[in-house]
């Protein structure tokens, strides 16, 4: 997909499990299949710094990272967003140290959720491919002008071999179009200064404007997804509802385990249990009203977080979902499950335990445990 987009600049540093993204892409560069300037840097902090410089210069810029690499980018993530530079990055989700662990959870991207990047979570390779193409259009849209992070699960998705439908190269190129930034450092006819110093009289206004930009990303994503459906036949929403419209109990979940959970839903439906699922796609900005509406008819919901969050008051998705429901969907029982940290396998029957718990809560009307750890050894 990077080859098809053919960005002007890719600056990246290898880190498991995102390494294959720049690795394969650098082969395309070496083979002359793209005209991209590939910048091999000495760290992820440098990778994001190089991306910021390139994007500020007016180049369409992309990168990839995981885990500690994303953590090392932290300072520059905020700068990319605040300078309104539409960089697109694949974030191949992996646990954070310590203890060191190369396997999948969402602690890396969840930690960056307040950095001002648009975040889109993806269940499988097809969705990640499609989202990355759409991300260019969302990021560069005049109403947004913000960086976009395309998140998918390390190894589970990144290293799985599955059949996907590719679009023709020409179709992708015409869909993403040519990048025409309003401001760029190389536009000598219109000289600009970027990365300016702001005193208290201006900083607040810039943050308010940035907040408006990420709010706009929701409608822009809807429009881009509708347009993408016309060329691909694949229609995406802000989130995906799976057998949710008549469900009594539901889980909210992001990325690959949503696929596993759909199998659980199918199994429970065969047993006559009205189970449903809401899969998070757009997480930043958070489509609060739409999610509340989609869940408004259920009796009990479990929000699944593949990141601890260490707030002692629930994981990050739980906090957002429950906060969104407060005052708008009162009476629905909402619980939190932390699951799969550090790549702990979560199967169909593990997810079934969550639905069993929800059924007990729905029947009794009482929440026994608000915060739960799926499959932890007590």
């Amino acid at each position, binding site marked *: 997909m990077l080859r098809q987009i053919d960005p002007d600049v890719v600056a990246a540093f290898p880190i498991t499990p995102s390494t294959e993204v720049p690795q394969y892409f650098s082969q395309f560069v070496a083979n002359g299949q793209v005209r991209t300037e590939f910048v091999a840097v000495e760290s992820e902090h440098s990778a994001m710094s190089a991306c910021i410089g390139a994007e500020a210069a007016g180049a369409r810029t992309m990168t990839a990272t995981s885990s500690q690499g994303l953590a090392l980018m932290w300072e520059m993530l905020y700068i990319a967003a605040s*300078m309104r530079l539409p960089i697109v990055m694949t974030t191949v989700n992996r646990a954070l140290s310590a203890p060191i662990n190369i396997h999948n959870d969402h602690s890396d991207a969840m930690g960056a959720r307040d950095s001002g990047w648009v975040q889109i979570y993806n269940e499988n390779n097809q969705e990640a491919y499609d989202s990355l193409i759409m991300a260019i259009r969302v990021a560069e849209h005049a109403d947004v*002008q913000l960086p976009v992070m395309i998140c998918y699960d390390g190894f589970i998705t990144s290293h799985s071999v599955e059949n996907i439908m590719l679009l023709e190269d020409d179709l992708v190129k015409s869909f993403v179009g040519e990048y025409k930034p*309003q401001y760029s450092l190389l536009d000598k006819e219109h000289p*600009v200064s970027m990365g300016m110093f702001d005193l208290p009289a*201006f900083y607040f206004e*810039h943050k*308010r*404007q940035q907040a408006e930009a990420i709010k706009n990303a929701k409608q822009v994503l809807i429009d881009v997804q509708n347009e993408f459906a016309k060329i691909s036949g694949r229609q995406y929403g802000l989130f995906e509802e799976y057998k949710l419209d008549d469900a009594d109990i539901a889980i909210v979940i992001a990325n690959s385990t949503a696929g596993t959970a759909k199998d659980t839903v199918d199994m429970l439906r065969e047993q006559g249990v009205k189970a449903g699922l809401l899969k998070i796609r757009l997480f930043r900005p958070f489509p609060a009203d739409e999610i509340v509406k989609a869940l408004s008819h259920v009796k009990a919901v479990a929000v699944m977080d593949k990141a601890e969050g260490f707030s002692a008051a629930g994981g990050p998705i739980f906090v957002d979902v429950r906060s969104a429901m407060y005052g708008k969907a009162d009476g629905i029982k909402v619980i939190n499950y932390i699951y799969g940290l550090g790549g702990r396998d979560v199967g169909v029957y593990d997810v079934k335990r969550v639905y069993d718990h929800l059924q007990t809560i729905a029947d009794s009307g009482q929440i026994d445990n608000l915060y739960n750890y799926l499959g932890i050894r007590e």
Partner: protein
Amino acid sequence: MSEIKKIEEVNEDISWRDITPGGIAPWAGGAEAFTTGDWRTMRPVLIEDKCTGCLLCWPTCPDTSIMPTDDGKIKYDYDHCKGCGICVETDRS
């Protein structure tokens, strides 16, 4: 994105809707519109009799606050000079 504002329009009354995105300053030489030297604690003073007009101080000033004059010497732009003292260190006379 919003249209490019004139530099005079970006003042402390500007709304968040109109301020330049990401703090971009789309004007060359925009520093002229802002007095940034007002927090200076020390200031360079030219001793006319000693200045030879060598201009060694001129390229070292981080704020381009040393301005050559027609009489072959210099004057200071106190609106932008931060009083860093680099020009004093450079001076040979």
